[in-house]
């Protein structure tokens, strides 16, 4: 009787403790990764290939998404802003939302799938096939060799990808406004410039940096914690996408509260 009453509580307690344990492990991993920054000789040669893989290779998908986001933003803005609101506000809305929110967040969510899952699956496979152990036996620090270059590459490249995505998104919104909404370029640009603040771009850069760290960090963590063969690798990849997406949105809210 008492058992059945207590069970939900104990389940909750166990879950909570497990969560704390997980957080602790993640913190330990990242602290160790931070210490591994010293081993520049290990991670530096891997940095550029990772920048190419994580950053450059992500540009097409990010631009694709930004293009359609820009089109949709432009059309929806003109649909919403009717009546007394001047038409150039379409430019304002497209610019502001692309720079402040959709550029960084949509790109990060996409890359959580593309980059995060990729890293998780890759490191997971390396873990279950003992390649991570092999690295260690060859006297490599796996954190310096695998984790540091990936996180650094993402931290460096995410802002670049996001900046390109923002630009393309605004450009596609502009073209949409010209072609489909009968706006003129000066009108759109007027709206675009109306509330523009260079700080917005910095805000986006700061956000992208943190999103890059989150996506690759979660990917590395889940990947290195993989257990149980191919199935475990799949689980890790899924977990990475879910956790990274959630963290991205939480962090997004956090930055909005702190920096705006």
């Amino acid at each position: 009787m008492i058992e059945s009453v207590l069970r939900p509580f104990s389940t909750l307690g166990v879950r909570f403790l497990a969560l704390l344990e997980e957080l602790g492990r993640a913190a330990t991993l990242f602290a160790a990764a931070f210490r591994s920054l010293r081993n520049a000789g290990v991670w530096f040669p891997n940095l550029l290939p990772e920048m190419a893989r994580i950053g450059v290779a992500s540009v097409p998908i990010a631009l694709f998404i930004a293009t359609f986001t820009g089109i949709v933003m432009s059309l929806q803005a003109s649909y919403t802003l009717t009546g007394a609101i001047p038409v150039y506000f379409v430019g304002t809305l497209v610019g502001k939302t692309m720079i402040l929110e959709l550029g960084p967040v949509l790109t990060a969510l996409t890359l959580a799938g593309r980059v995060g899952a990729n890293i998780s699956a890759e490191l997971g496979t390396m873990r279950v096939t003992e390649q991570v152990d092999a690295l260690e036996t060859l006297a490599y620090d796996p954190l310096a060799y695998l984790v540091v270059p990936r996180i650094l590459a993402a931290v460096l490249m995410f802002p670049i990808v996001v900046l390109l995505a923002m630009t393309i998104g605004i450009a596609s919104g502009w073209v949409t406004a010209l072609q489909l909404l009968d706006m003129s370029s000066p009108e759109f640009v007027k709206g675009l410039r109306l509330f523009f603040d260079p700080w917005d771009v910095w805000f986006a850069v700061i956000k992208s940096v943190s999103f890059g760290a989150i996506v690759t960090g979660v990917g590395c963590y889940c990947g290195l914690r993989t257990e149980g063969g191919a199935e475990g690798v799949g689980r890790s990849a899924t977990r990475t996408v879910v956790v990274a997406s959630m963290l991205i949105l939480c962090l997004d809210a956090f930055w909005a509260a702190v920096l705006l």
Partner: protein
Amino acid sequence: MGIHLREVRKSFGPRDVLRGFTLRVTDGETAAIVGPSGSGKSVLLKHVVGLLTPDSGSVTVDGAAVPELKGRALVRLRRRIGYVFQFAALFDSMTVAENVGMGLRRMPGWDRRRIRARTEDCLALVELAGMGDRYPAQLSGGQRKRAGLARAIAPSPRYLLYDEPTTGLDPVTTAVIDRLILRMRDELGVTGLVVTHDMTSAFRVADRITMLHEGKARFTGTPAEVRAAADPVLRGFVEGNPDLYFGAGRARSEDRAER
């Protein structure tokens, strides 16, 4: 100096894998640890290179306590030990040659040319000459094992740890690998520790054989002593007789339960 494990205990959650395992491998010999799958043989090997730390007991290599080593000392130790993984654990993203050269790249005094020369030597030693440009996925199981061995010996280690070197291989390839292990001992003077459940292979390569059973060293002796041993568990395992093996094991567990 050699490898010395004393009263090593290790558990993963509720599962006690090692329950006070003791083993000494002296320089120049090749020791084999035999036991069924899942008995903790790989766990044992990982303790020797510091991939795992024991819950209690000591692990020393060349007199240095492995669990206490950190940083450069650990790196130095690991360069003295080559580890041949069960499924070779080659890095998929690199060619075989890059895999073999991996352990050399960060060693002082090794430039690209010297690494290439050494890589070719090692590949030739494991009879994979000319395969350096292939990727692991393009190799057969036996070739992969040999590539893994080449990678382990490239930094000229004093110790080689083999994790199931012949598992999943056909008898001929098994024989090739066994011969390689012997060559390592005889030509390079490497001290070997082979973990295997393949008794044929164990008898072929080992100077001494230790039976790992229920987390402890149940029996240690030369191949001849093993063949002559009367211990039912060891005999059951060597002869592949489950009734004997499990019967004795069960009796033993019941024994303990009663006590």
